[in-house]
C-alpha cells in the first residue's frame, strides 16, 4: 500500500469554541451596513460618456481632423493592423512583436475596420441618401472615382488647411485652396456629428440589426483625438497611471498598480511593444504568485520573516513557556515542515506532536471556552 504523507491534523490540536455560522452572519451584517452607508454618503464615480455630437459642437476642427485621418490613412486605426485591418495599403503601424513573437496577428482581422469606408464614406452615403443631397452624392462619386494620388493631394491640402482654419458661429472657415470634394465631405460629416446621427451610423456597422451591443467603430472614431484630450485634462493618460485611478477623489482599481507601474518605466513606457511585454510581464508575475509553494527560497521566506510570530504570538508564548517543541518527538520533521515524512498505513506511527497534547491546553488559558481535545487516533492526510 502506498505510504501516506504525514501532516498535522487541525482537529487534534487543543480546541476552543467557535461558531462559524454566527461569524459569517455577523461579518455579512457589519459589511452590509458599512458598504450601504458608504454608497449613501459618497455615491459612486460616474462621468457621462462622451459623444461625437458633443465633440463636434465643442471642437468641430478636431472632428474634421479625425475624419481626414480616417480618410487618408494617417489616423491610428486606419493603419493599425490586426485585428482591425492589414494596415493602410499594407503598412500596419500597431502590430506588436516581441522577438518575432506576435500573437496579435494569429487571428487575422476578425473585427474589420476600413476607416475610410466605415467612418467617412458609408455614413456620408447614408446622409446623402436620407437628405436627397445631390451635391454630397456628387462629391462622394468624385472622390471615389479619383486616382489615389489625387485623393491624397486633396486630403493633404485639406489637412494643412484645417491647421489654419477658424470657427465662426460653429462653422469651420477654411482658407482658399484645392480641396476637391473633400471640403464638402468633411464639412457634412462634422454637421452629421453635430446632429447626433453619426454615432448611430457607426454603431449600425458592427451590429447588423436593431441591437447595439458592439460599439467598436464609435469608440475607435472617438479614440483618435476626443477621448485622449479629455483623459489628458483629467490625468488619466497611460503615462499618468490612467487606468489605476478613477474620477475625482474616489479610489480606483488600485489592484492594477503593479501593471500600471510598468507603463511609467522603460522599456514599457518607451518600447513599441510596451503593451505586449507589459501583459507578458504581468502574466509571469501571476504565475510566480500561483507557484509560490514550490519556488525555493520564496516558499521558505515567511518562516524567516518574524510576521508569523506576531500572528501566532499567544500560541508561541505558551509553547515556549513549556518548551513543548523542545520535547516534541517530531521536532526534526517539523523543522522540515514534515517534508518526506510518510506513514505506513499498515503500521501507523504512534508518535504524536507535542502541540496536540492536552496538557498544553490546560496551561493555555487565554481563551474562554477552551476545552481539551478528545483522544482521537492519529489522523493522516493522503496528499
Amino acid at each position, binding site marked *: 500500500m502506498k505510504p501516506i504523507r504525514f501532516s498535522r491534523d*487541525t482537529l487534534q*490540536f487543543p*480546541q*476552543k469554541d467557535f461558531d*462559524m455560522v454566527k*461569524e459569517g452572519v455577523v*461579518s*455579512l451584517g457589519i*459589511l452590509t451596513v*458599512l*458598504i*450601504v452607508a*458608504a*454608497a449613501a454618503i459618497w*455615491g*459612486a464615480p*460616474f*462621468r457621462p*460618456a462622451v459623444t461625437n455630437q458633443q465633440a463636434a459642437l465643442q471642437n468641430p476642427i478636431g472632428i474634421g481632423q479625425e475624419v481626414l485621418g480616417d480618410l487618408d490613412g494617417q489616423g491610428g486605426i486606419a493603419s493599425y493592423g*490586426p*485585428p482591425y485591418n492589414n494596415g493602410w495599403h499594407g503598412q500596419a503601424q*500597431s502590430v*506588436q512583436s516581441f522577438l518575432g513573437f506576435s*500573437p*496579435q496577428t494569429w487571428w487575422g482581422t*476578425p*473585427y474589420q475596420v476600413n476607416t475610410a469606408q466605415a467612418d467617412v464614406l458609408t455614413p456620408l452615403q447614408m446622409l446623402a441618401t436620407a437628405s436627397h443631397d445631390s451635391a454630397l452624392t456628387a462629391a462622394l462619386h468624385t472622390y471615389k472615382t479619383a486616382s489615389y494620388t489625387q485623393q491624397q493631394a486633396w486630403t493633404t491640402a485639406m489637412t494643412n488647411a484645417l491647421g489654419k482654419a477658424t470657427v465662426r458661429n460653429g462653422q469651420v472657415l477654411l482658407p482658399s485652396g484645392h480641396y476637391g470634394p473633400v471640403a464638402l465631405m468633411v464639412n457634412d460629416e462634422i454637421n452629421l456629428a453635430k446632429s447626433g446621427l453619426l454615432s448611430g451610423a457607426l454603431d449600425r456597422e458592427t451590429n447588423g440589426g436593431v441591437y447595439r*451591443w*458592439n460599439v*467598436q467603430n464609435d*469608440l475607435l472614431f472617438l*479614440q483618435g483625438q476626443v*477621448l485622449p484630450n*479629455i*483623459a489628458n485634462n483629467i490625468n488619466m493618460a497611460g503615462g499618468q497611471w490612467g*487606468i489605476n485611478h*478613477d*474620477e475625482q477623489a474616489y*479610489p480606483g*482599481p488600485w489592484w492594477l498598480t503593479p501593471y500600471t507601474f510598468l507603463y511609467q518605466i522603460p522599456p514599457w513606457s518607451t518600447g513599441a511593444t510596451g*503593451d*505586449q511585454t507589459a*501583459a*507578458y510581464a504581468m502574466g509571469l508575475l501571476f504565475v510566480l504568485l*500561483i507557484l509560490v509553494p514550490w519556488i525555493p527560497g520564496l*516558499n521558505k521566506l*515567511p518562516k524567516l520573516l518574524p*510576521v508569523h510570530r506576531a*500572528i*501566532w504570538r499567544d*500560541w*508561541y508564548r505558551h509553547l515556549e513557556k513549556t*518548551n513543548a*517543541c523542545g520535547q516534541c518527538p517530531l521536532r526534526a520533521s517539523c523543522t522540515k515542515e*514534515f517534508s518526506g515524512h510518510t506513514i505506513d498505513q499498515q503500521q501507523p506511527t504512534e508518535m504524536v506532536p507535542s502541540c496536540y497534547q492536552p496538557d498544553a*491546553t490546560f496551561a493555555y488559558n*487565554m*481563551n474562554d471556552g477552551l*476545552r481539551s481535545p478528545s483522544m482521537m487516533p492519529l489522523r493522516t492526510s493522503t*496528499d
Partner: protein
Amino acid sequence: MNWTQSMRQRVSEKLTWDHLLPSEQPVYVSSLVYSFGVFTLSSLVICVASGIIMSAYGPTWYQDSAAGSLLRGVHFWSVQAFFFFMTMHLVGQFFMGSWREGRALTWVIGAVSFGISVVEAFTGYLSRGDFFSQWNQVQSKDAFNGAGIDGFLNILNNGQVYGLHIAVLPVILIGLVGWHLIAVRSKGVVPPYQARVLTKEGRHS
C-alpha cells in the same frame, strides 16, 4: 470499481461536519488576520447580490435613476472592500506560509481566484457605461490585442464584455471560491510554524 461508492466514501472521509461547519477551532486561531477571509467572502456576497439587482433592472437603470445610482454605489464600494480584504487575506496567508502540509492546492485556487477577480472587476469598470469605460476600453484594446487575446475578445464589444462580467466570470469565480472554501475546510487552517526551543543555556533558539 463503483464510482458512486468511491465518491461517497471519499467525501464522507474528507468532509465531515467537523470539517465543513466546525463548532470548534484550534486554539492557535487567534488573530485579526483570520477575519480577512470571511470579510472577503462577505464582500463578495454583497458584490453578487447588488450585481444581480443591477443586471435585473439593466444598465440604463443603474446609470440614470436614483435607486440605480445607489445600487451602483453599493456595487462599487463592495468591490473596493472585496479587493481590500482579499489582498489582506493573501498577504496574511503568505506570512503564515499557508500552503504548508498539503495545502498547496488551496493556495493555487486562491491565487487563481485573485486573477479572475481582476479580470472580473475590469469588465465591470467597462460596463459602467461612462467616460471611464470608454477611455479604458480604447486604452486596453492595445494590450489585449498585443497579448494575442484579440482572437477571442473584442474589448470594444459591450455585449461580450457585459456577458463576461455578469455571467461567465462570476460563475468561474464563485466556483473557484467554493472550491477554495472546501479545500480550506477539509484541511483546516494551517498549523503554526515550529516554536523556538530552549537551549542548554536556557535561551530560545
